[in-house]
Each structure stands twice: as C-alpha cells, then as structure tokens.
C-alpha cells in the first residue's frame, strides 16, 4: 500500500474538463495523476458503465495507455493537507498525494431544494435521474414527472424516455417569454440550437411549479401549479432540477474564496490566485460540457508550462463563456415559488431530519447548526446548506477539514506529514 505519492500535475475530476486537462498536460511529458470519485471516467454528462462507451471513451483509453498518466477511479479527495498535498481515499485505503501543480475539475452538483414530500424514495434530482439510469436503474414502464427550471429538465426527460419511461409532465418554472428569448438567441451556437429543438417535448409546460410530492412509503404522485390552476398527477418518480452549484470545497480548503454560487475565480488561463492551482469546468461557473472541455485544455496546457498553446485557445473559451452568460441571463432562476410551497413540517436537513419550523427563528447557518444540528449529518450541509443559501440568503457553511465521510483506517494510514520534496512511495 502506497501511503505517500508524488506527481507533477494532479487533476481532481475526470469529467470533460479533467479529461481535457489530462490530455493536454500529458503532451508535456510531465507526470499526471487523474483522480475521480466515480467508477468510470466521463463525469456526470459522459457517465458510462464499465466496458461501456461514451464521448469520454476515446480520450480515456488514450490516457490509460499514456506512460505519463496515472488514473485513479473510485477515489475521492477527502482532505486538503497542505498547499501541495491532499489526502485521497479509495476502497483499498487512503494515501497522501503531493503535487507541484493542481487542476481542480470538481464539476457541479445539483441544487436540491426542499418542498413537501421531497424526502420520499423516488424523488431525485434531474441529473440524478440521468445518473441512476446510466448506472443501471430501470425506469421502464414508469411514469415520471420532471420539474424545476433549466435545459437539464429536457435532457433528463429524453434520457428517461429512451430508457422506456413515460414522461407525464415537464413542469418548467420559467415563463414562456423567457424560454423563447433563451431559444431564439441560440442561433450563435448552432449545436445548442439543434439540441434544444430535438429535446423539446409536447408535455412541456412553462410557468409550472411543483408544490408537493405525495405518497407514504414512496412517491405516488405530484401536485403542480400552472399559472393559477393546481392539479395532481399520478407518477412513480419525480425528478427536480433547480439549477447547478459549482463544487468548490477543495478550493475553499486551499484558502481560495469562491464567489458565492459562481464558482472558483480564475483568469483567462484558468489560473487561480494561487499560481500553482488551476480550475476548469463547471466548478468555475456553470456553462456546459463545451466550456468545460476548452477550459480543461487551457488548464492542462498552462499547468504544464505550455503557455503559448494555452493562449491560442482563449477565443474558443470566450465563445462558450458567451453561451453561459446568454443562458444565465435568459433562463434566470426564480425559487420564490419553491420557497412559498414549503410547510412548517417540510424537512430541510435530510440527514438530521430538521423541519423548516425548527429553523424559522434562526438567522444564519451557524445558529442553525448550534441549535438544531441542521447540516451536521453525513452530507455535511452540501444539500441543506446550499438550499438555505439559495432560499434564505444564509452564508454557505465553511468547508470542514474532512470534506467527505472516510474510514478511520484511511486516516490512520498516513504515517507523517511530507512536503513535496520529501515525498516517498511506500511498499
């Protein structure tokens, strides 16, 4: 078991950004270590099963053959141990990984907001539903309602439909006029316009909000409001998408303060305020796989000292940044309806089962934690802390020392603290 290992360039995350970064950095001949918490590379958008195929496959195979690249799937960064070292944890144990340069490609998670019934089995995120289907969960013959806001609703509906589900309704919060503006402006990004056209479904309804998921042991239906009318639809699953939130825990632990909900701040060569730390993809701001890919390429080139080549990619980067701005401007997130649907007994913290009523008198996150244990369970506030920040403007919780639950044995594996210069490979 190796307790301590060194690499020139450590990349956290093997989605589009991480794969592109690894591919670009590997051309320099420097050692590259690519770490990812899923069992296969591709991130969420190119998620695949072992032996399966996705857009990630060609590059992932090339990287696996490269003598300069080490890939660790099923491995998580659980602790930032210093400016040049992190602790990684995998099924077989943990180790201290030191690096010269770090590229954070940690992606984004879904914004999951509490509403009555959201804790019932069968309620998932929209990206979550796609992930479950891609990992082998069968939805064949199931009736699914998709609700929330954003283009991911339509993508999720398509994935579920192709897997044999019946999409009963796609309930989009945004008004029709806003959606039309978003769609019309897409002519500048033809592949995105084509996607929008092919994904559209006749069960799509604008100005429609989810009020409640109903059922006792699992989801049996959903109550929706369209305009001023309320109605109930029977279904087997409810998938909700209220937007995406950049994963910034590693950057926070390194002392980089991300702009709230906007991701890790980087310059146009993807470099953070720490000159040896780069970030690329959704963790620097939501914008999709194309933005993530070009940012990853730039980060990989820049981190490996290939600055001139990195600079040549800036025009492509600007093009996808414009797309991200277009979507954010025309598809604004309005969560007031979800906030209004919450009832006193609606659980906000699912780990500790803390209802909204118990949080009513709290003015902020720290107070809520001290008085109620909200956000102190296994997810460490990643779900409810983000929800509270979105709904009530509470300052998001500061990141804990341990960013994910990990086994005590993994921590015990670390013999001592090593700097980058004294790193050793154990037996």
């Amino acid at each position, binding site marked *: 078991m190796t307790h301590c290992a060194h690499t020139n360039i450590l990349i956290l995350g093997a989605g589009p950004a991480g794969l592109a970064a690894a591919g670009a950095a590997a051309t320099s001949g420097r050692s590259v270590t690519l770490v990812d918490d899923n069992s296969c590379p591709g991130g969420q958008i190119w998620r695949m099963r072992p*032996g*399966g195929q996705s857009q990630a496959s060609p590059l992932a195979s090339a990287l696996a053959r490269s003598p300069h690249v080490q890939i660790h799937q099923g491995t998580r960064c659980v602790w930032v141990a210093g400016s040049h070292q992190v602790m990684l944890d995998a099924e077989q144990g943990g180790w201290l990984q030191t690096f010269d340069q770090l590229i954070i490609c940690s992606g984004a998670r879904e914004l999951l907001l509490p509403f009555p019934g959201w*804790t019932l*089995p069968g309620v998932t*995120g929209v*990206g*979550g539903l796609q*992930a479950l289907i891609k990992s082998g*969960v069968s939805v064949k013959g199931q009736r699914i309602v998709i609700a929330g806001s954003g283009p991911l609703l339509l993508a999720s509906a398509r994935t579920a439909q192709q897997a044999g589900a019946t999409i009963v309704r796609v309930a989009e919060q945004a008004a029709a006029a806003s959606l039309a503006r978003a769609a019309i402006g897409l002519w500048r990004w033809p592949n995105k316009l084509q996607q929008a056209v092919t994904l559209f479904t006749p069960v799509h309804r604008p100005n429609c909000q989810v009020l409640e998921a109903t059922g006792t*042991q699992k989801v049996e239906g959903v109550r929706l409001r369209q305009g001023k009318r309320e109605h109930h639809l029977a279904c087997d699953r409810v998938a909700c998408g209220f937007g995406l939130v950049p994963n910034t825990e590693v950057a926070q632990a390194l002392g980089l303060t991300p702009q709230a909900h906007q991701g890790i701040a980087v310059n146009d060569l993807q470099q953070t305020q720490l000159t040896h730390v780069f970030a690329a993809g959704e963790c620097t701001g939501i914008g999709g796989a194309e933005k993530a890919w070009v940012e990853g390429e730039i980060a990989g080139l820049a981190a490996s000292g290939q600055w001139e080549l990195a600079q040549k990619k800036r025009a492509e980067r600007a093009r996808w940044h414009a797309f991200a701005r277009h979507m954010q401007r025309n598809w604004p997130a309005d969560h007031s309806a979800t906030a209004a649907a919450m009832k006193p007994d609606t659980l906000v913290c699912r780990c500790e089962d803390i209802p909204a009523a118990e949080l009513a008198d709290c003015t902020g996150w720290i107070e809520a934690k001290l008085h109620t244990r909200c956000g102190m369970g296994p997810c460490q506030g990643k779900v409810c802390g983000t929800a509270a920040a979105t709904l009530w403007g509470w300052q998001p919780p500061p990141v804990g020392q341990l960013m994910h639950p990990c086994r005590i044995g993994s921590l015990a594996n670390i013999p001592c603290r090593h700097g980058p210069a004294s790193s050793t490979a154990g037996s």
Partner: protein
Amino acid sequence: MTHMITLEIDGHGQTVEDGITVLAALSQTGIGCTRLSITGQPRSALCGMGICQECRVAVDGLRRLACQTLVKSGMRVRTLSGGA
C-alpha cells in the same frame, strides 16, 4: 450476451447484470429504500452522484454509497433499516 453475477442483498442471493451499481441492483430486486432516517422515514438516492449520502448501505461490512459502488460477485449488501 450480458454477464450476470450473484450477490447477497439483505441475506438473499440475487443474480444481477455485471457492471451496474449496488443502487441499480437494489432497485432491480424491488428494494426502493436504502435506509431509514433518524426519525424512521424511508429514504433512497436523491442526488445519484455521491453528494447527498442518502443511498448509503453496508457493503461487506463497510459503509458505502450505493450510487457509486459497482456490484461484484459474492458481495454482501445490507440496507440500513436501523437508521444508521
């Protein structure tokens, strides 16, 4: 031809497709609940990508996330009905 494997779920032998997650194996076996919450409510995967911790189960005695763990032949999976 899909390769099938056999594992144990809550004490019962189950044959499932190789390459799927433990969560998919649970759902194919008709188990829609991965754990009971601290107040006894049934729960299952919410995020599907290793964030929410709702799908945690015991795999060969160790706590793992069902959504990120692949099935293996001979694996013993126990859902957390005790509210762990």
